[in-house]
C-alpha cells in the first residue's frame, strides 16, 4: 500500500537517456527497462523460493501448524514438494518449473496449479480491469477538478470523501455493501460471478454485469482516491507553469487552458504513478474476491492460504508480484509515446 500523498515519485524516464555513445538512446532506454524488469522478476522468484522453504526451517511444519496431520501425510507433502531433495536441487527444479509455467500440483484441488491459474485469470482480469479503468477515469477527473480549483469547497469535499474512502478497509466495505444491498435489499447477488441456468450470450453478459456491480464498486471506492490525489498534485505542479500564462494570453477560455494545456502535461507523471501503485489493486483483488466469492486468482490465493496449499500460494505470489513488475515495465514502455521529450 502507498499513501495517497503520492510520495515517492517515480524516477521518470529521461534519466536513462544520458548514455554511452554508440547505442541509440531509445534502445538503451528500452534495454535498461527490460533488464531491470527481468532482474526484478528473478528476484521475486528467488524470494518466493527461499521465503517458503528456508525461512521457517520446515515449510511443511510451518504450513500445517495448528492442524492435526499424520506422519504419512507429512511425508507425502515433503515428497510432493520435492522437499526430500537437497536444497540446490530443489532450487534448480523450481526454476526450471517456473520457466515452463509448471508450478506443481495443488494440494487441495489435486490439479496442476497452472491449470487453476489459467481458469481463474479471466474473472480476475475482468474485475480488476473494469475496476481500475473506472477508478482511473474517476480519479483523474476529480483530481483535475480539485487541483484546478484548489481550496474551493468542491476541492475540500472531494478530497474529504476520497480520504475517507481510502481509510475504509476494502473487505469491510464489501461486506457492508452485501449486508445493505444484497442480502438486505436483495438488489444484487451476494456472491459469485454468474447465476445457474442463464442462457444466451446477452443474458449471460447481463448476469455477469449484475454480479460485478458490487465488487467493482468496492474496488473503485478504495482505489480511486489514490489516483485522484496523484492527479490533483500533478495539476497543482503545473498550475504555475509559464505555458499556461501563454495559453491564457492567447485568449483561451479557462476550461480550454485546463483541457488542452494543463491536463496533458499533468497526466504524464500521473500515468507512471498509477502503474507504480498497482499493488493496491492486487490487494484489492485478493480481498474483494474473497468477500464476494468471485472465482478469480484472489479467492484462489485466499483458499490456498486457508488450507494451506503451498504450491498455490507460492505460484500466486510470483504471479501477483510479476504482474505488477510487468505492468511497470509497460508503463516505462508507454511513457515515451506520451511524452515527446523522452521519445527524441
Amino acid at each position: 500500500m502507498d499513501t495517497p500523498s503520492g510520495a515517492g515519485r517515480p524516477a521518470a524516464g529521461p534519466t536513462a537517456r544520458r548514455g554511452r555513445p554508440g547505442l541509440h538512446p531509445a534502445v538503451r532506454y528500452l534495454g535498461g527497462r527490460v533488464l531491470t524488469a527481468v532482474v526484478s522478476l528473478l528476484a521475486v522468484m528467488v524470494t518466493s523460493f527461499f521465503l517458503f522453504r528456508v525461512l521457517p526451517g520446515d515449510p511443511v511444519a510451518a504450513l500445517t501448524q495448528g492442524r492435526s496431520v499424520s506422519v504419512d501425510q507429512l511425508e507425502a507433502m515433503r515428497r510432493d514438494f520435492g522437499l526430500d531433495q537437497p536444497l540446490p536441487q530443489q532450487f534448480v527444479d523450481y526454476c526450471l518449473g517456473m520457466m515452463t509455467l509448471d508450478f506443481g500440483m495443488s494440494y487441495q484441488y489435486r490439479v496442476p496449479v497452472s491449470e487453476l491459474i489459467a481458469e481463474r485469470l479471466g474473472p480476475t482480469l475482468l474485475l480488476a480491469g473494469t475496476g481500475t479503468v473506472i477508478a482511473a477515469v474517476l480519479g483523474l477527473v476529480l483530481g483535475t477538478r480539485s487541483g484546478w480549483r484548489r481550496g474551493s469547497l468542491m476541492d475540500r469535499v472531494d478530497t474529504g470523501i476520497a480520504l475517507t474512502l481510502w481509510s475504509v478497509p476494502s473487505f469491510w466495505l464489501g461486506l457492508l455493501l452485501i449486508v445493505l444491498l444484497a442480502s438486505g435489499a436483495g438488489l444484487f447477488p451476494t456472491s459469485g460471478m454468474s447465476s445457474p441456468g442463464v442462457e444466451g450470450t446477452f443474458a449471460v453478459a447481463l448476469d455477469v454485469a449484475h454480479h460485478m456491480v458490487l465488487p467493482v464498486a468496492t474496488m473503485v471506492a478504495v482505489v480511486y482516491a489514490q489516483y485522484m490525489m496523484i492527479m490533483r498534485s500533478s495539476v497543482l505542479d503545473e498550475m504555475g507553469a509559464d505555458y499556461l500564462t501563454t495559453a491564457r494570453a492567447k485568449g483561451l477560455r479557462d476550461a480550454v487552458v485546463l483541457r488542452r494545456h494543463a491536463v496533458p502535461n499533468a497526466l504524464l507523471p500521473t500515468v507512471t504513478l498509477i502503474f507504480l501503485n498497482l499493488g493496491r489493486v492486487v490487494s484489492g483483488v485478493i480481498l474483494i474476491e474473497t468477500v464476494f466469492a468471485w472465482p478469480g486468482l484472489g479467492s484462489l490465493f485466499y483458499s490456498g492460504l486457508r488450507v494451506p496449499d503451498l504450491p498455490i500460494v507460492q505460484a500466486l505470489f510470483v504471479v501477483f508480484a510479476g504482474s505488477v513488475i510487468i505492468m511497470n515495465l509497460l508503463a516505462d514502455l508507454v511513457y515515451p509515446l506520451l511524452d515527446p521529450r523522452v521519445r527524441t
Partner: protein
Amino acid sequence: MKQSTPAGATGERPAPATADAGGRYLEVDDLSVSYRTAGGEIPAVRGVSFGLEPGRKLGVAGESGCGKSTVALALLRLLPRSARTSGSVLLDGEDVLAMRWGRLRAVRWSGASIVFQGAMHALNPVQRVGGQIAEPLLVHGRADPAQARGQAAELLEQVGLPAWRARSYPHELSGGQRQRAMIAMALACRPQLIVADEPTTALDVMIQAQILRLIDELVAGLDISMLMISHDLSVLAETCDRLAVMYAGRIVEEGPAEEVFAAARHPYGAALSAAFPRVGDPASRRAPRGLPGDPPDPAELPSGCAFHPRCPEAQERCSRVDPLLWPAGADRSAACVRVLTPEQERAAGVPPADEGGGADRGHTAEPDPDGAAPAQARPHPQEWS
C-alpha cells in the same frame, strides 16, 4: 499613503510633438498592482503611467523584482487571482481592466500579444510548435484548421525558421529557435502591439543580436507598436525610441532612449546604464559600475525616495521626500529631487537641500510610519512648461 504619480506626469509631457493623446494605441494611467499575501498587501507596481503611439517602441528597464513583468502581465489582465489592480489600461481606447471576460478574451493576442521571457517554459512542452502557433488563429476565428496550418508555416518562415519546424516539439529547438517560434506565435493574429518581456535573456550574445534584429525588422515592417522589457539598458537603448526606468514599482526616469542611456538624470538610471556599457564607449569605462545592496523588499519600502539607501548621491532630505516624475530637460522626466531648480523645489514643496537645517530637521527627520510626513511634493504643471 504612498502617493502615485499624478495622472498627467508623463501623459501631459511638455513635448507634445509626437504625443497626440488621441493617437495613442496604448495608454496606461496610474496603474497599481498589489499582491494579497498572508502578511498583508504587498505593492508590486505603484502608480505607473505611460503611453505608446502606433509604430513606436518603448523600453522598460529595471532590476528583477522592480515590477516590470507585473506591468506586462497587467496589460492583458494575466496576473494571478491574488493580485489587485487599479488605474486604467486603455488599449485602442478601451479599458482592459474594465472589460468583460468575453471581450477580454477577444482582445488578448489579437489586440496585443506577448513574447514571454524564457521561451523554454512559455511553450507547451508536449505540443508541436506549429499547433501552438496556429492555436490563436483558431481561437479567434481567423482561419480554419487547414489555413491555420499554412499560416503557421508562413509565420515560421517569416521569423527565419524552416516550415518543417512546425512539426517539432519545443525541446527539439535551440533557445534562439524557440524564441523565434515564440515571436511567430505573437505575430499570428497581427496584433497592433507586441509586449516583449525579456525576449533575449538566457540567450547567448550572438543569438541575442539576431533576435533583436529580427524583432526590429518585423516591428518596422509591420508597423506594430512594441513594449520591450529588459534588465539590460543597452539592449533597450539600441532597439527602442523611448526608455522608462523602473525602480521599486515606479517609473523613476523617462525620456528618449539615446539620451536616457547616455546621460541618465536619475542616479538609478545612471547606475543601470553603467552596468551595461556599450562596446567601445570610453566614457562608460570611467563611470561607476554596479550598485551596492539589493532592491528593497516591496513589503518594507524605505521612507522618502525608495532608492535613497542605495543612492550614491543621496541627500539628507531624500529620506523624507517621495519624489515624483519631474521634468528633467526637454521631453524628459526623472523622479529625483536633484532635477529641480530651487524655484521648482519651492513650488513643489520640497524641503531645501541645505545641510545643517537643525530646526527643519526637528519636525521632519522622523517620518511618520504611514508616510504622511514626507513632503508631498507635487509639481505645478504650469511651472514646468
